[in-house]
């Protein structure tokens, strides 16, 4: 049976406020709450809540046959908790239906998978914990930020216990192969790969209103695919529903009528975690260099393409190990937020999608000022004159000392107690 695998991504960054260099060292709050919230409110109102309502209705009317997955970054969940808890509730309700799966992704929607593997592992674990806490089920499928995938990343992901990972259809990886099969990692065959059909995904996400797409036509395209191509994976940002494609274009009605037409054509819906049970892998995909889901080149240039971006990323990830030693909560939160891919995208000369800066340079200047302050704070916690290893040892000793002291204190108490007893005996 032919199946559609739908997944939606939600990520909203904390936008940085205008942070001038003379504030470095004085002001440790970096965020433009007003702008962040304005963006959030707009999307919650126009997109997320409406789309959730539509989807819950679809699940109900199809008796749970309509299924889809969500990947919501950790920082976005925090924003929801803070500003729009009703969205969390709405997702919780969806989770209860059992037709919805929540995917794991790096907590900060970061490039850590490319720049800092231990940070990547930490963030994925953090995110999985958060998802489990909120929605009751630990994810087994990974959606890496911006669908970044390479053999190396896949290997790490598999080691962390994930069974399935999502990736995009990049011509240089796929070659003649169709995206509509299940694949596996090139040398860790137990990690299954679901390839996004980017043409059909973009037909909804980008071209929907332009070409006047109807659910019937869309489903007929899928029905007319060559035989054997049984897994059609459609991934897009959730804001497509109601924002990129505003409500008046009829996007919600389109979504609502999809299950009906699909069932008419004997097409089902499937969750990423169920696929590996349902279908066999068609073969291995070799991806020596990381790919993403942006642009026609599907590479990392929107975030790492120019010198400014490289510089910012290198400076940021250079302190990764050190920050992870810290216990200062505010510092750790800033560390996450500063890693969001958005900040680097804004520094792109040619593809600064969603930017609120006038130019790439302005984005870079502002970010670097913030980063300078952040680095000073890290430095204040652990001066860079101490090597990481040495620091590690020292920290170990300190931690041990605490335990040691505790142990000794216990002993003292015991000893104090004993003499009393012996006195009584006497």
């Amino acid at each position: 049976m032919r199946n559609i695998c739908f997944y939606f991504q939600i990520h909203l960054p904390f936008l940085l406020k205008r942070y001038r260099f003379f504030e470095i060292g004085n002001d440790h709050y970096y965020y433009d709450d007003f702008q962040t919230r304005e963006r959030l409110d707009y999307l919650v109102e126009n997109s997320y809540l409406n789309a959730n309502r539509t989807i819950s209705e679809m699940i109900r009317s199809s008796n749970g046959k309509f299924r889809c997955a969500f990947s919501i970054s950790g920082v976005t969940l925090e924003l929801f908790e803070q500003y729009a808890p009703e969205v969390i509730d709405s997702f919780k309700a969806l989770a209860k239906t059992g037709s919805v799966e929540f995917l794991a992704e790096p907590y900060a929607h970061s490039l850590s998978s490319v720049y800092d593997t231990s940070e990547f592992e930490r963030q994925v674990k953090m995110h999985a914990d958060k998802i489990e806490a909120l929605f009751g089920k630990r994810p087994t499928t990974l959606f890496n930020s911006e669908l970044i995938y390479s053999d190396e990343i896949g290997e790490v992901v598999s080691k962390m216990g994930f069974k399935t990972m999502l990736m995009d259809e990049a011509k240089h990886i796929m070659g003649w192969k169709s995206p509509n099969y299940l694949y596996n990692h090139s040398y860790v065959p137990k990690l299954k790969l679901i390839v996004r059909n980017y043409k059909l995904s973009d037909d909804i996400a980008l071209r929907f209103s332009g070409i006047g797409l109807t659910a019937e036509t869309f489903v007929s395209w899928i029905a007319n695919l060559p035989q054997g191509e049984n897994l059609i994976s459609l991934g897009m940002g959730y804001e497509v529903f109601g924002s990129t494609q505003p409500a008046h274009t009829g996007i919600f009605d389109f979504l609502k009528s999809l299950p009906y037409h699909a069932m008419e054509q004997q097409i089902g819906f499937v969750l990423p975690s169920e696929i590996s049970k349902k279908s066999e892998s068609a073969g291995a995909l070799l991806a020596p260099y990381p790919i993403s889901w942006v642009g026609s080149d599907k590479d990392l240039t929107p975030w790492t393409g120019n010198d400014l971006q490289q510089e910012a990323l290198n400076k940021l990830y250079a302190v990764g190990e050190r920050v992870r030693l810290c216990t200062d909560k505010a510092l750790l939160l800033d560390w996450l937020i500063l890693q969001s891919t958005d900040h680097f995208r804004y520094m792109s000369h040619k593809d600064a999608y969603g930017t609120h800066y006038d130019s790439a340079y302005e984005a870079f200047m502002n970010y670097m000022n913030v980063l300078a302050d952040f680095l000073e704070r890290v430095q204040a916690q652990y001066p860079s004159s101490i090597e990481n290893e040495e620091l590690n040892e020292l920290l170990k000793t300190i931690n041990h000392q605490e335990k040691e002291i505790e142990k000794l204190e216990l002993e003292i108490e015991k000893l104090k107690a004993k003499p009393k007893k012996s006195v009584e005996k006497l």
Partner: protein
Amino acid sequence: MKALMFGWEFPPHILGGLGTASYGLTKGMALQSDMEITFVIPKPHGDEDQSFLKIIGACNVPVVWKENSWDYVNQRIGSMMKPDEFFGLRDGIKYDFRRIYTNDLGCVDFSGRYPDNLIEEISNYEAVASVLAHKLDFDIIHSHDWLTYPAGVFAKQISGKPLVIHVHATDFDRSRGQVNPTVYGIEKRGMDVADHIMTVSDLTRKIVIEKYHQDPRKVTTVHNAVEPLPDVESFKKTPRNDKVVTFLGRITMQKGPEYFVEAAYRVLQKTKGVRFVMAGSGDMMNAMIDLAAKRGIADRFHFTGFLKGRQVHEMLAESDVYIMPSVSEPFGISPLEAMQVGTPTIISKQSGCAEILTHAIKTDYWDIDAMADAIYSIVKNPAMFESLSKLGLEEVNNIKWYDAGLKVRRIYDSVMQ
């Protein structure tokens, strides 16, 4: 296509950006194979590059008939103009200009600068234009800047040929809004009579439309470009400990020098390894020296006085940042020159060149915080410096006078139909 152009300056003897722009534009236009340009300036020095156009000095054109022998004329101005040409032009005198003070040849002694009796010089230039309009063969008249509008208008009235005027600046730019009514009158009349108006930026175009009440269909923007530097390799940055941030231009109200001093003050509060240079001279120079002293940054703030020729490019090349905080700049060619030698630039959003540059930092002229921030970022982040330097150079090398020339040509063609 034969164009008769009226200008005021032509390199190498120039006083402002007008001469540079005139040179670049005509050179770019001369690349069109059927373009013949005659360029009139008040007073040539004889060392102008005439390989691609013909220069006529208004000071060598007779406006009052005086009898002179061939030999005498040859001896007087033979190096600038052939006596036969002189006598030919003399036949073009159709009006009585004896009210004008002329020399022994019947010519006017132009200063070619911006003297106190500028208005008189402009009207004398108009007289010269009448003689040329009667004698020369041309298809179109092109006037550069307000000083030459009356000449262009008169030439149009005599010859009936179309007139295009090239607005390099308006009095609104020069005076921060306090316009001189006489100058405004001259500008307005030129624009009213012109068949088409070219402006060096959209900013200027807007002023022309709004303040001079011109029909938007008649006004087109032709952005300036920059001549490639032949000896660009010879300009090097000498290694030094301190970073250098440079302001270069006339130290006048229009250029916003005080914002530069204030931005410098802000940067120096945070870091010491930066020096600030104010190159050029002007009526606000002393006030700026005072201001720098008052802010207590005089030890890191330097004045060079007026720079010319090669010194300009040397200064730009030695700088780590070039900054132009102009309050109102119709175009502003110097940031492009800085980019040619690989120096990152910060320009005000109120300058015309901001419209065509991507790899330059743009701030509002009054936003000294943003300016200071940009300076700090460039001197502290090598990646920022490298990016702006490398991509800026690439960008500026693609801004060619040839393309601007083609745009002008299309305007010529359209007004001649």
